[in-house]
């Protein structure tokens, strides 16, 4: 398996984000003329052949998504970059935007030209102030160098790039909520169908929404070919991937590995094992929305299909490691609290369920739990699962339900002992 480092070679170094450094270090803006020469049908085919799957969470094949854009439509078409990276534990897009903004911009230009869009919106997370500044600067450089603007790359093709800063809502990472937010509306997900914004997207026009990392893969695919891209990772899960490791390991951080890299190898070899000589208790393999894996279940490869088989998901590849001195209920409270605060409040199960779950977990942690509370948590999660407009309901229900199921004994201990066995306290039961 190819384990070449392509993304993170220059991470952590100063002065690599400029256009000159990008051109010198990473053969920057060579893919763009090559793509123009290839023709856009061929580029689309190359991306399809590479098997590149969306890096934002759902893992939808990128080429297929581009292919959904109707060719005969006389409406304007848009490319929207989802840089609203707010999933707890995720910091991969931030690295790309900090150290390789031009890689993303080049990928975005290729994508926009492929789908015949003349406008690129980059919706960047509100808290990413520094990153937005770097990106703005990079966009200005790209305009100056003639890659963006009225005559993009000398082809006479007009292409504009707008950096749109969010206002700090997790839900605006959901692609339809993101589109609403750009349009100036409340950041609430739209009803499905249509399942893809390819038909009705931004301002009612055909739109492709891509993650930062997905677009950053595109110049490499164009430059080095689909076959090269496929040398990373297993079948149908090709490519290299940035993994964000946080939690109780000795060396947390951003690791670039090919898809399908074993999780235990990543923890024990790359991250130097669990900190303070403790044991692994559990891990979120794909951000706080993914169902939790117990220590035994962690013998899994990190790719979309393997994790789906293990009953979880790769999501945004935000791996959060939990050691055996941690109270699982505290982890659950942290998760429940996050989702309670971030629910948009549009549909009933999510608006009411998230608050209820948070209150129940607080009560349990404070040692005031009741016998039926665990079943109640599961039932609330079941009632939220699959009944909401967007995946937020599931993102809340899945991890919380998996925690009750997999660590039921520990939860029950809180009830029978009327206290937290780990000695913790999460404040009073009704804490907000």
């Amino acid at each position, binding site marked *: 398996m190819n384990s070449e480092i392509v993304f993170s070679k220059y991470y952590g170094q100063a002065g690599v984000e400029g256009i000159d450094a990008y051109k010198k270090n990473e053969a920057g803006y060579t893919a763009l003329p090559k793509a123009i020469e290839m023709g856009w049908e061929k580029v689309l085919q190359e991306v399809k052949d590479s098997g590149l799957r969306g890096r934002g969470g759902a893992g939808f094949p990128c080429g297929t998504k581009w292919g959904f854009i109707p060719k005969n439509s006389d409406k304007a078409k848009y490319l929207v970059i989802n840089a609203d990276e707010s999933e707890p534990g995720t910091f991969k897009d931030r690295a790309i935007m900090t150290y390789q903004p031009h890689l993303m911009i080049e990928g975005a230009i290729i994508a926009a030209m492929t789908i015949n869009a003349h406008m690129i919106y980059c919706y960047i997370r509100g808290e990413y102030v520094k990153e937005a500044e770097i990106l703005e600067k990079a966009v200005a450089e790209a305009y100056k160098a003639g890659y963006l603007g009225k005559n993009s790359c000398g082809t006479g093709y007009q292409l504009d790039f707008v950096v749109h800063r969010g206002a700090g*809502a997790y839900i605006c990472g959901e692609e339809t909520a993101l589109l609403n937010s750009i349009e100036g509306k*409340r950041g609430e997900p739209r*009803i499905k169908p249509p399942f893809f914004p390819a038909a009705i997207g931004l301002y009612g026009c055909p739109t492709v929404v891509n993650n930062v990392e997905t677009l950053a893969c595109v110049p490499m695919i164009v430059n080095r070919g689909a076959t090269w891209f496929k040398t990373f990772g297993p079948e149908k899960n090709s490519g290299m991937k940035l993994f964000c490791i946080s939690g109780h390991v000795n060396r947390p951080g951003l690791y670039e590995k090919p898809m399908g890299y074993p999780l235990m190898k990543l923890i024990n070899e790359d991250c130097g094992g669990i900190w303070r000589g403790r044991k692994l208790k559990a891990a979120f393999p794909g951000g706080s929305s993914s169902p939790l894996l117990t220590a035994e279940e962690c013998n899994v490869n990190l790719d979309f299909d393997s994790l789906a088989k293990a009953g979880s998901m790769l999501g945004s590849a935000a791996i959060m490691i939990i050691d055996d001195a941690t109270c699982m209920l505290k982890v659950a409270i942290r998760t429940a609290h996050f989702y*309670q*605060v*971030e*629910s*948009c*409040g*549009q*549909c*009933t*199960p999510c*608006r*009411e*369920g*998230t*608050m*209820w779950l948070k*209150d129940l977990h607080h009560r349990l942690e404070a040692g005031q739990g009741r016998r039926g509370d665990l079943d*109640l948590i599961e039932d609330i999660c*079941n*009632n*939220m699962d*699959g*009944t*909401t*407009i967007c995946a937020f309901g599931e993102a809340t229900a899945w991890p919380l339900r998996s925690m009750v199921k997999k660590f039921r004994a520990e939860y029950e201990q809180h009830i029978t002992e009327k206290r937290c066995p780990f000695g913790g306290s999460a404040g009073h039961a*009704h804490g907000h």
Partner: protein
Amino acid sequence: MPKVIIDGVEVEFQAGEKIIQATDRAKAVHIPRYCYHDGLSIVAQCRMCLVEVEGQKKLVTACSTPCADGMKISTKSDKVKKSVKGVQEFLLANHPLDCPICDQAGECSLQEYSYGHGQEDARYDFFRRTFIDVDMGPSIKKNMNRCIHCTRCIRYCDEVGQIHEMIAQNRGNSTEIITIDNNPLKTAYAGGLADVCPVGSLTTKDFRFKKRVWYLKPGEGVCDGCSQGCNITHSQESNYLFRLEPRLNMEVNKWWMCDEGRYGFHHVHSPSRVVGPTDLRSGSPKGVMWGEAIPAVKEMMASAKSVAFFVCADATQEEASTLQKAFGSADFFSYSPTVAASAEDKPLDHLLRRKDKSPNLKGLEALNFKPYSAFDPKKYEIVFFVSAGKVRPPYGLAKLAKKAVGLGVFLKEELLGYQFILPGASTYEKAGTFVNFKGMKQSFKASVPPVGMSRTLESVVVGLLEAPRKVS
């Protein structure tokens, strides 16, 4: 026609129709809903109408899913029942359950679906979110605690009132439905918010705390506020009118009515309404019996050479033709307070309100009533002013006539110049027909009997024509 199969029953649908619209039209099965309203856009956010479609993994919302030929839909499967029960429980989690003091109780969707789909016990035992009641202008009072966030009101203001003035503020569990900057509502259709609100969150100040709705007896009527002729439901209890609501008529008012019409019935039970025959010949009002009033008016008429009827255009077609038949030799004039003739009538806004503030001007014109501009009170020895209380003759006009008699609904402070008042019926106290600006004839029935000693115009006319009774 293509068909869908709902719970084993075939239901035909038109192209583009959603599942809930097909079932509603066929009256096949009632799918519970909160956010869906026939007259508003679809948002599918209450999640109450989830149904199971064969071949689809997830439940779908009946309000937003279009029908497809041969689609097999279940509204009663275990999965659907569980989800509906779950949504109902979520909605009640933060609901104050203050039905005993809530005006909506009895016609509340939350109550209805609780009985039909909910569970008997509450599992939620944490603090419920609380807000203080907010005044939303002259029409509406808001109780946010009862709100279920269906956003019908927000869409109503945007789409029906066409003023963007209600919004959802904050996020998630603390979402508050509110007017922008807490401003009073500007729309002339604010009362409709209480109609579209499926719970007791938005109530009209006019009806608030007046009556438990299960005592009310509804009747079908036509609004007499303007030439639009909106179809209404008027609710009464013990012969007392409590409220007017719009009644669905797709050709006239659809689901809506304006505030002016909605609250424009208070003259019926006004304490200053003249409810008995009144003799004003001495200069001060004196209550008399019908047996004295009718012969006295007859005597006045017998000596009069010229008679005119000044008919306010809230008279029904039946009343107008009765007068014409009975007093054919007299002159008849129609009167609307805002227009000289129905040709001047025009819409006042995008929706319903019209310039002509009388309900039947078009009808009276069809009966060849002369316009108000041709009326000279001094020309006649006796002028009858006919009004149903909604359109009232200009104050002081009666004084210009040699002799004036009021027939109908008059207020005590407007009696200047009259010799006699023969109290009559308001629009809600009589049956009849109005002709609206489009020329549509719309009939209605009486809701309450005339107040006090008031009589319908027909019975007064019969009395005036009757030969004097001789004592044998």
